[in-house]
């Protein structure tokens, strides 16, 4: 019977892939893409995840988990597998898997989709699953602690500095997505702005007025959020109020920085915790809604399967298909950040070891599915519209007419009228040059949803999509700034002990300001730089996130070797080799490529020449040169730290292989579970 089910899933996958393969050169329904993805996930889950669980990790239902042994009614809580799946998914999923595929669609929908589906099965889900099992067998220790104990303490502080700088790039990239989506958009600004007083109200409700009623507070918050979404339309159409909510990119950037700082200093109940509940609710709801929308409407993919931009001439971001397709997809196929969650809250809640494949491997399959849906939402747009939204205005020629000319030059038809009408139907003044991924995803989603509900609701759906993306991102920004603050306090505490006291206001204010200034500075520089934009920041984020994945995979390989299963080490070693080759190639090209569109140092040299020739303003040029050099240094730092960690891990594997070091398991000793089932 199980074999029959697996065979059935294989047929589903084969049907999906087969239809995609046969429809070359004509439009194909998104249904086949969804079918290919789901079929592949199910087969991989039944065969590969089972193999990992039985052969590689030898999961044992009789072995008590940390949740059982340390149960404290707080963080160590044995949790049912379906609840924990949702909890884990909400923690790993955010804006990354939504934005990455939309940008990578510049290569066409096929390359990105292949990497999202194959990458998750062989790399991303394996990483999350391995780290979850590794942490569960070590009392729920974090990736940092495991790395320190398994690979060596030398890299401990270095790794922390690296994670901190990766966080800075992540927060700046995500903040830029929000700035681009909300710039000159009164509807969006009003709706997102409302989430702050809503969160404060929820916080007061759940802690002061009706302590403990977090659920009630969340329900109230959701109702108010929907009211704010609908109310935004009236703000945008009011001549009196609209100008107050129509903000420039610079104002928005400064507001975000102020918000991140404030959320980091204030007690969490006031802003951070309530927004987190709101965001979780919207996150799970939206993913279900998007899946339902795509399956109900079954739109056609209008983007070509592969575009000519695979040669590296793409207008959205520079770089060839290899390695930049893999870098840009970021979280949908493999994400280093997940290793932090898989070694954070989740292992402390796992009820039985044998739930780990469902949570660790299955949770990541779900994230990959979100990325596939984001790819569908980008690919249902007319190619001309897709490029009009995602290419910076500067590169399009500055006006609607010039934009449509430029895009026609690339071989995609689009008229100025078409763009104006589309913007009006979305309730916006313009959609051209709204880079960052979020707006084009929102337009795609609005088209899918209004296919089910009627075109008159397109504007509402567009702003709903913007709302949830901005909500995810602001949740990452406030939580991230706060995590950055704690890291800075911990590092500072090594120099002067009192600085590490988290309840001491001067220290927390200074550390929060430093954390917010870190990503804020990068954000402001990118907003100021006419050549900057998501195309320059997002690849840097992709590289840093995947470098964290190489560290997680190296740690995972060490754990497998030390558990005496060295013959199976290829399960993490193969993805490690692949991810190392894409990240180091991409990092090298971003720094040293001779093409100034791609290589940051070459870009700096060109700016210097232009300033010398008098064709570029000296202030603008100096800023570009500084940004390029700074970003190059940052990129070099990431590569160096990752290389150091990987080299020390490999050295250890070789010593174990040559029997110079005995294989000693570092897992916690077996304790039999008290659970009956």
């Amino acid at each position, binding site marked *: 019977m199980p074999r029959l089910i697996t065979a059935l899933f294989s047929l589903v996958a084969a049907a999906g892939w087969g239809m995609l393969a046969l429809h070359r050169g004509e439009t194909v329904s998104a249904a086949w893409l969804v079918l290919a993805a789901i079929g592949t996930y199910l087969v991989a889950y039944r065969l590969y995840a089972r193999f990992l669980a039985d052969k590689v990790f030898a999961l044992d239902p009789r072995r008590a988990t940390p949740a059982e042994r340390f*149960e*404290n*009614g*707080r*963080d160590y*809580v044995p*949790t*049912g597998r379906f*609840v924990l799946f*949702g*909890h884990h998914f*909400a*923690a*790993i*999923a*955010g*804006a*990354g898997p939504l934005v990455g595929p939309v940008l990578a669609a510049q290569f066409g929908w096929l390359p990105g989709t292949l990497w999202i589906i194959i990458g998750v099965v062989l790399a991303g889900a394996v990483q999350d699953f391995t780290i979850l099992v590794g942490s569960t067998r070590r009392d729920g220790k*974090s990736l940092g602690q495991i790395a320190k104990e398994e690979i060596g303490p030398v890299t401990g502080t270095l790794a922390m500095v690296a994670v901190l700088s990766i966080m800075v790039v*992540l927060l700046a990239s995500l903040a830029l997505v929000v700035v681009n989506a909300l710039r000159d958009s009164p509807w969006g600004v009003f709706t997102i702005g409302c989430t702050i007083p809503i969160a404060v109200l929820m916080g007061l409700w*759940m*802690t*002061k007025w009706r*302590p*403990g*009623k*977090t*659920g*009630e507070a*969340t329900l109230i918050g959701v109702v108010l959020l929907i009211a704010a979404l609908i109310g935004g339309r009236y703000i945008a159409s009011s001549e009196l109020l609209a100008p107050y909510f129509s903000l420039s990119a610079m104002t928005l950037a400064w507001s975000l920085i102020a918000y991140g700082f404030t959320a980091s200093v204030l*007690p*969490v*109940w006031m802003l*951070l*915790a309530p927004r*987190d*509940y709101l*965001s*979780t*609710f919207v996150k*799970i709801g939206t993913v279900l809604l998007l899946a339902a929308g795509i399956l109900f409407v079954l739109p056609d993919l209008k983007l070509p399967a592969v575009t000519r931009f695979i040669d590296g001439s793409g207008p959205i971001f520079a770089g060839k298909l290899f390695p930049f397709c893999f870098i840009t997809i*970021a*979280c949908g196929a493999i*994400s280093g*950040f*997940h290793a*932090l*969650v898989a070694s*954070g*809250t989740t292992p402390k809640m796992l009820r039985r070891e044998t739930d780990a494949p469902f949570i660790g491997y299955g949770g990541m399959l779900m994230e990959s599915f979100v990325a596939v849906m984001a790819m569908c939402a980008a690919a249902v747009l007319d190619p001309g519209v897709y490029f009009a939204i995602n290419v910076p205005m500067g590169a399009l020629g500055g006006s609607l007419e010039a934009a449509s000319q430029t895009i026609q030059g690339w071989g995609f038809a689009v008229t100025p009228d078409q763009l104006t009408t589309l913007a009006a139907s979305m309730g916006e003044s313009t959609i051209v040059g709204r880079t960052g991924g979020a707006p084009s995803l929102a337009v795609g989603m609005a088209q899918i949803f209004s296919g089910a509900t009627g075109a008159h609701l397109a504007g509402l759906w567009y702003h709903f999509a913007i709302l949830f993306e901005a909500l995810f991102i602001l*949740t*990452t920004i406030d*939580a*991230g700034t*706060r*995590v950055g603050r*704690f890291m800075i306090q911990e590092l500072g505490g090594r120099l002067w002990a009192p600085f590490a006291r*988290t309840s001491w206001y001067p220290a927390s204010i200074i550390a929060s300001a430093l954390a917010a200034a870190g990503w804020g500075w990068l954000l402001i520089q990118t907003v100021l730089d006419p050549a900057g934009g998501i195309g320059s920041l997002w690849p840097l*984020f992709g590289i840093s*996130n995947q470098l964290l994945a190489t560290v997680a995979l190296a740690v995972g390989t060490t754990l497998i070797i030390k558990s005496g299963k060295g013959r199976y080490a290829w399960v993490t070693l193969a993805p490690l080799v692949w991810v190392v080759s894409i990240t180091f190639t991409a990092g090298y090209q971003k720094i040293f490529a001779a093409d100034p569109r791609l290589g940051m140092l070459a870009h700096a040299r060109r700016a210097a020449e232009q300033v010398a020739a008098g064709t570029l303003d000296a202030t603008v040029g100096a800023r570009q040169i500084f940004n390029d050099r700074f970003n190059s240094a940052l990129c070099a730092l990431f590569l160096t730290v990752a290389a150091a960690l990987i080299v020390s891990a490999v050295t250890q594997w070789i010593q174990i292989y040559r029997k110079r070091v005995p294989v000693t398991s570092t897992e916690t000793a077996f304790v039999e579970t008290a659970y009956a089932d």
Partner: protein
Amino acid sequence: MLTEANSPQPSVHGPLGQARSGRLSAVGCWLSALFGMPNYPRYIAHQHRCHPGAPVLSEKEFVLAELERKHAGGAGRCC
């Protein structure tokens, strides 16, 4: 801080107000666990079972402490 004498009993409502028994309560429990909301009844039950006689936090103290703990360190939310 409350003492054992005036501490609440485990059978109080959960975070979604699931005082009633039955299906609605089960859904409430499920959702609040999914969201990772502070669960006071569970904490009280744990204290009664494992640390009888020890002082327990009031519901308000517990909620504040839980929210603070949940967002204190590590990576609570991802990209």
